[in-house]
């Protein structure tokens, strides 16, 4: 009898766990299917054919396309997996370089005053201080370059993972980043050649080369990172608008059935206003983004404005999402509301 009890207990555990597996599976496959369907609807050509600023009556301008589709390209699962692995590897390299950089910096801070005092002294102790400082300067520069390179590699993988960029735009941006990585590798190699006995002038030159390369890189990094974030925000806006259509349809059904929908309609208006505000800020951020790309030199000021609009857009979407939870709670509270939601969903899928 003990065996029967043990078997029952085991069955209980397995049966209990099964719903988790199915729920996860159903969740992700449903979402992907919906997104794929959205992406390829109407048999339109591949999104990569669309370019920013394309003429009227011809190809759809990229921004309009971005506001139309949830996905701008389909990325194979295997490719996504490789990008995620590379991102993790770059993240680890970044952390190691950051730690080594901090160690070198701490040592330089400790010896900085003594190094300056030793400039006019030729003692054995001063020679040692000079040697150590140069070795630490080398480590600081090499790891500084490594930090930036690893950070650029992470950014590259984020671009690779974004289905909100067309294949063409992603390739263009990745090539831009690769060019910066190559430049930084070159500057890093110069720094790697430094040693305890290097001439101070060589250390200064290497530091200057890395600093200049970093200044040129910063612009590329800021703009591409902002683009990845903005593209994601654009995706949330599109999904929110599609969801709003469905909610409107569900409410219309309830209204036709004579149900009181005033409360839920007020919430949907609130949801819609927040999404609209997010969309306005998204567009303003995109304007700033385009302005930055067309501007030579330092774009920090423009990017700051773009970031501020993106933060506002993000805030608007978070507010919308909080209201959405209330809308769904209200609708699902009644059987009629639940049914109207399901019908709106199946009608949309049938279209």
């Amino acid at each position, binding site marked *: 009898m003990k065996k029967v009890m043990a078997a029952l207990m085991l069955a209980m555990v397995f049966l209990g766990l099964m719903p988790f597996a199915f729920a996860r599976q159903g969740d992700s496959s449903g979402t992907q299917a919906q997104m794929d369907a959205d992406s390829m609807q109407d048999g339109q050509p591949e999104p990569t054919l669309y370019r920013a600023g394309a003429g009227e009556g011809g190809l759809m301008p990229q921004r309009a396309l971005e506001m139309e589709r949830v996905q701008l390209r389909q990325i194979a699962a295997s490719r996504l997996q490789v990008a995620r692995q590379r991102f993790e590897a770059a993240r680890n390299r970044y952390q190691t370089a950051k730690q080594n950089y901090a160690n070198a910096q701490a040592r330089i801070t400790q010896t900085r005053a003594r190094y300056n005092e030793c400039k006019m002294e030729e003692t054995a102790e001063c020679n040692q201080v000079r040697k150590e400082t140069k070795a630490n300067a080398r480590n600081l520069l090499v790891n500084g370059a490594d930090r930036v390179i690893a950070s650029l590699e992470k950014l590259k993988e*984020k671009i690779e993972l974004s289905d909100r960029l067309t294949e063409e735009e992603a390739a263009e941006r990745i090539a831009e980043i690769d060019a910066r990585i190559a430049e930084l590798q070159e500057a890093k190699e110069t720094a790697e050649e430094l040693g305890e006995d290097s001439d101070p002038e060589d250390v200064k030159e290497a530091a200057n080369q890395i600093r200049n390369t970093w200044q040129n890189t910063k612009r590329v990094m800021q703009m591409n990172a902002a683009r990845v974030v903005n593209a994601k925000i654009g995706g949330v806006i599109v999904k929110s608008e599609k969801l709003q259509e469905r909610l409107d349809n569900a409410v219309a059904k309830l209204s036709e059935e004579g149900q009181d929908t005033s409360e839920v309609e007020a919430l949907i208006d609130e949801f819609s206003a927040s999404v609209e505000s997010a969309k306005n800020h998204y567009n303003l951020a995109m304007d700033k983004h385009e302005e930055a790309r067309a501007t030579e030199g330092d774009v920090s000021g423009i990017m700051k404005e773009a970031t501020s609009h993106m933060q506002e857009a993000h805030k608007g979407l978070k507010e919308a999402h909080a209201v959405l939870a209330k809308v769904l709670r209200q609708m699902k509270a009644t059987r009629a509301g639940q049914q109207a939601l399901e019908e709106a969903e199946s009608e949309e899928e049938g279209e």
Partner: protein
Amino acid sequence: MRKQLIFAALSLLVVSALLTGCAQPPAGPAEATDIDDDLKALEELDTDLDIAELDSLDKEFADLEAMFS
């Protein structure tokens, strides 16, 4: 013993029903879950790309350059 068996079978049903309820995706259509995930991913993106962390490099490289001048 029969009582124990009935109790175990009932427990099985209750636990299974409870877990099924807990494992359901959050209320609402798939997009609602998607949006939730996207908003979380957005929060992480800034830290992931550590742009702010690298801001101090300018000054630090310049300080080093000055030190060896």
